Every structure is written in structure tokens, then in C-alpha cells.
């Protein structure tokens, strides 16, 4: 709620009203804001809210402040809401009803309905971004970049930061991709017209693009055919590629994580899930230092052969003993691993008899096996 500024509620030139809805209560994060129920107004430039009883109480926020938003369905005794996640406060923001807030999101609670239309219009305005084309006289500060020195955050702040980074990355990728498309076109044309060779220079440039995306020489079905030979080559490539990521993650990755990692790096000639699994099944026969492993629950992981099971279980027992008891979620947070893999680890330790379980309405919790 600290992103809002006081306003007189009048629209500027070039600013038009899109939709307004009565019966809206504001929430600062999960807490009810100190205002009463009022009217929410959406313009091409701002999100405005005005108190029903006291029309002087009027606040607004530029739409550029909005990071993303989502619907929250209502229930019995609960109105439907729109949750709006916001960029950090810009330094030159005008004063508003809240000096500071521990939340970086607000909610609009629609006590007299209207959320469906409001959400639709908000989506439209956020797509069109009309405020960028027609700036108004009031200063509308845009969401600034990251504050320097912010420590690694989990939760919404971390996600927001990642979204910012991704956006910048995407912009960079788009400009790089343009270059690459030009190059590919020129190569394709040359091949088509059988005009001379592809110069060594072009080949080198092409390969350097691939390298920057993480693939030195993509093994494709064309170059190596399909079937076992293809899978063999693929397995060897995976063996190289996954070494570092596996070590970073303590020697084990869920197969789904591997799939995402590999395909993100390849960029083109994506792997199908079947090809990935078939390649992974060949690790052992090819004497590669990786293994595909299936847990009792059906979860499939790729793990380093050097990965020590006993160490993993012993450390799990240490962690649990240290804290008295742990849930899979708590353990995941402790290790920085996914909840899926953490749970597998705990289940394995239980299978070996080092841990026992407490299953109650509070959830599933693991204790050292004192029996």
C-alpha cells in the first residue's frame, strides 16, 4: 500500500477512464488496509481508489508500478479478489496514505462483484500500455531496477527480481537472435543457390552463437540418426553437460529439472522426454559417471555415480536430529533443494531405519528413529 499517492482524482489530459467499480476494499498484502470500502477506478494511466463517504480521500498509483496480477476466487463469506504485485517504490514517489509497507502486493476485494470485468480491463490496459505513448503532466515514475546490495530473497521478492532479470535477458536475446536469424538466412540462401562455400568466418560465428547458448555442437537426429546410436551420443553429451549442475545441487537432480535445463540450453532441436529417458538409461552401459535412478514413488532422478548414498542419509539424520523433527518443506528450505528431492531423501532415510514418521492433521513430519 505504500505505492499509492494522494491525488485529487481528476483525470489528466490524454488520460481516459476505462472502468470503475463500487464496493471495493483495499488490502495491504494480506491485511485489510485502513480505508473503508470505496470505488476503484481504472484509467489508461493509473489505478485510482476513492473512499465512498469521504471523496477527499483519493489515492492513485501509476499502472507502470504493476508487476503482474492474478485473480483470487471468492468463497463462502469471502469476496473475490484481484491480487496485484508491484515493483519497488520509486524514489520520487509522491506522499500517500502509507509511508511504508512490508508487502509488495495489494489486493482489491470486490464486495459488490465486478471483478471479472475489472480484471479483463486491467489485462487490456496492461497489455496496451497506453500510458507509455501518451505521458501525462503528473510525474509517473516507472518501476526502477533493482536496488543495489539486496540480499538473496526467497518468496515473492525473489520471484519479482527474477522476472526483472528475465525481462532484461529476453531483450538481449531478442537482439542477438535477430543477428543470428540474419546469419542463418544468409547460410540457407547460399546452400539453396549452391553458391560457393559457407565461409569459415560464418561457420565460426554460427558455432560461437551455439556455444553461448550452451551447446558446442548439437547432436541432432539428422547428424546421428535416430535410435540407439543417437541415444548413445546424446548420453555422452549429457554426461559432459550435467556434471557441473549436478555438483552444484549436491549430486542429484530430478529428471524434470534435467529436461528443462538441457532444452533451455539447446534452444532449438529440443529433446523429447522419451529421448532424454532413453539416453539416460544408457549411462551405465557407456560407463559414464552418471546414473538414472527411479525411487519407489516413481520419481526419476539423475545422480552422479560418485554421489554417496550413505553420506546423504547420514546428513539427513543429522539435520533432523538437530532440529528435533523436520517436514519435507522445512528440509528443502534448509538444503536449498526442491521439496520433491528432499522428500525422497527423507523417505530413503526412513527406509533405512534412521528416521520415523509422524503423520497427523498437521502434516507429515520426520523424527530420528528412537524406537
Amino acid at each position, binding site marked *: 500500500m505504500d505505492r499509492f499517492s494522494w491525488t485529487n482524482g481528476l483525470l489528466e489530459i490524454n488520460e481516459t477512464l476505462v472502468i470503475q467499480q463500487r464496493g471495493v476494499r483495499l488490502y495491504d498484502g494480506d491485511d485489510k488496509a485502513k480505508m473503508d470500502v470505496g470505488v476503484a477506478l481504472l484509467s489508461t494511466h493509473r489505478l485510482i481508489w476513492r473512499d465512498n463517504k469521504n471523496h477527499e480521500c483519493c489515492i492513485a498509483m501509476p499502472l507502470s508500478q504493476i508487476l503482474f496480477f492474478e485473480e483470487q476466487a471468492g468463497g463462502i463469506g469471502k469476496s473475490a479478489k484481484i491480487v496485484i504485485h508491484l515493483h519497488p517504490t520509486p524514489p520520487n514517489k509522491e506522499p500517500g496514505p502509507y509511508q511504508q509497507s512490508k508487502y509488495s502486493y495489494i489486493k482489491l476485494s470486490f464486495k459488490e462483484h465486478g471483478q471479472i470485468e475489472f480484471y479483463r480491463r486491467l489485462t487490456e490496459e496492461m497489455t496496451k500500455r497506453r500510458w507509455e505513448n501518451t505521458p501525462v503532466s503528473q510525474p509517473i515514475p516507472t518501476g526502477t531496477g533493482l536496488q543495489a546490495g539486496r540480499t538473496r530473497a526467497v518468496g515473492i521478492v525473489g520471484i519479482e527480481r527474477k522476472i526483472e532479470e528475465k525481462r532484461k535477458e529476453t531483450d538481449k536475446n531478442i537482439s542477438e537472435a535477430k543477428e543470428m536469424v540474419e546469419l542463418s538466412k544468409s547460410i540457407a540462401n547460399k546452400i539453396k543457390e549452391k553458391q560457393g562455400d559457407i565461409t569459415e568466418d560464418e561457420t565460426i560465428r554460427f558455432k560461437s552463437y551455439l556455444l553461448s547458448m550452451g551447446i558446442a555442437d548439437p547432436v541432432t537426429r539428422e547428424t546421428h540418426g535416430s535410435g540407439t546410436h543417437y541415444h548413445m551420443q546424446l548420453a555422452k553429451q549429457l554426461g559432459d553437460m550435467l556434471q557441473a549442475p549436478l555438483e552444484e545441487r549436491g549430486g542429484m537432480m530430478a529428471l524434470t529439472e534435467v529436461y528443462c535445463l538441457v532444452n533451455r540450453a539447446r534452444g532449438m532441436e529440443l529433446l523429447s522426454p522419451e529421448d532424454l529417458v532413453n539416453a539416460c538409461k544408457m549411462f551405465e552401459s557407456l560407463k559414464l559417471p552418471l546414473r538414472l535412478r527411479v525411487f519407489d514413488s516413481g520419481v526419476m532422478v539423475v545422480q552422479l555415480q560418485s554421489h554417496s548414498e550413505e553420506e546423504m542419509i547420514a546428513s539427513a539424520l543429522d539435520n533432523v536430529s538437530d532440529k528435533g*523433527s523436520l517436514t519435507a518443506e522445512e528440509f528443502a528450505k534448509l538444503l536449498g533443494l526442491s521439496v520433491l528431492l528432499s522428500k525422497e531423501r527423507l523417505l530413503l532415510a526412513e527406509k533405512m*531405519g534412521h528416521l*520415523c*514418521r509422524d503423520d497427523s492433521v498437521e502434516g507429515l513430519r520426520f*523424527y530420528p528413529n528412537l524406537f
Partner: protein
Amino acid sequence: MSFEWPWQYNFPPFFTLQPNADTRQKQLEAWCSLALSYCRHHKLYTLDVMEAQESPMFNNKKIERKLSMEAIQIVFEELRKKGNLEWLDKNKLRCLVMWRRPEEWGKLIYQWVSKNGMVNSVFTLYELSNGDDTQGEEFHGLEEWMLLRSLQALQTDGRAEIISMDDGKGVKFF
């Protein structure tokens, strides 16, 4: 003297049926032991399964954990296999709890009889369970059905004979 709970009683996992076979075995043994001690302490000879689920024996309000009906049935089955429990009905809702098996009672009674040089005497059942002479003995106050089974066990062993008398049963020890 108030009942002393075993350490497991305050350990939340104790109330969850453990999937690991070895762990489960130890868990069940502890439950059997607790159930029998509890019954012995409170001199309970029969149990109603529904009531048992809510009683402190299977329900620790302090840590907000209780044994599920499924787990209770498994514990009772263990006790039955060991000879400490007998179902009174087909639906398995009521049972006899023998925190001491009939053979064990029989042995105790016989020891008392022989210690006091009363072998070859005849006793009524009442004298044994409620007589002044047996005051202070562990089997004093034993319920009749249990006493009868104990004496039957001795009879099988050839150390006693149950006889019918005018107003009830009696027993002669050899």
C-alpha cells in the same frame, strides 16, 4: 501410585503406524506392553474398542496425537496372537484383556497353595479370589472368568481339578 507412561507415549511418531517393517515391529511391541501395563494398573479385564480409542491409553491429549482405529486393531491382533487378548464378539468391539495369561495366574495361585502347605485341600472359587487368607496376594480380586481359566490351565497340567459343588465351583490342588 499413578501410572508411569513409557517414553514412547510422548513421542509423536509413536501414534503413526510406521511403514518400515523393523521400526513397526518395535513400535507394536511397545504398544502391546503399554496396553497391558495400563490395564494391569487400572485392573481392567475387558475393553470396549470404541471407548479405548478415546481413553488416555491410546489418546495423548497433551501432544494431540491418538492411535487410529486401524492401528488399534493391529495392536489388538498382536495381543491376541500372544495370548493376552480374546474377542468377546464377532465384530471385534469388545475383548478380554489378560495382562497376565491364565497359565501365569495358575502358577501364582499354585505357588501360594503349596507355600502354605495347602496342597490336597479343597477351595471354593470365592475363597480363592475373595477370602481373607488371600488378602494381599496378586490374584486377590481376580474376576471369576479369569480365575476359572487359570484353574483350567492348572487342570490341564494335572495340578488341579475343578469340582462342582452345591452353590458353585470349587477346586482341589494336587
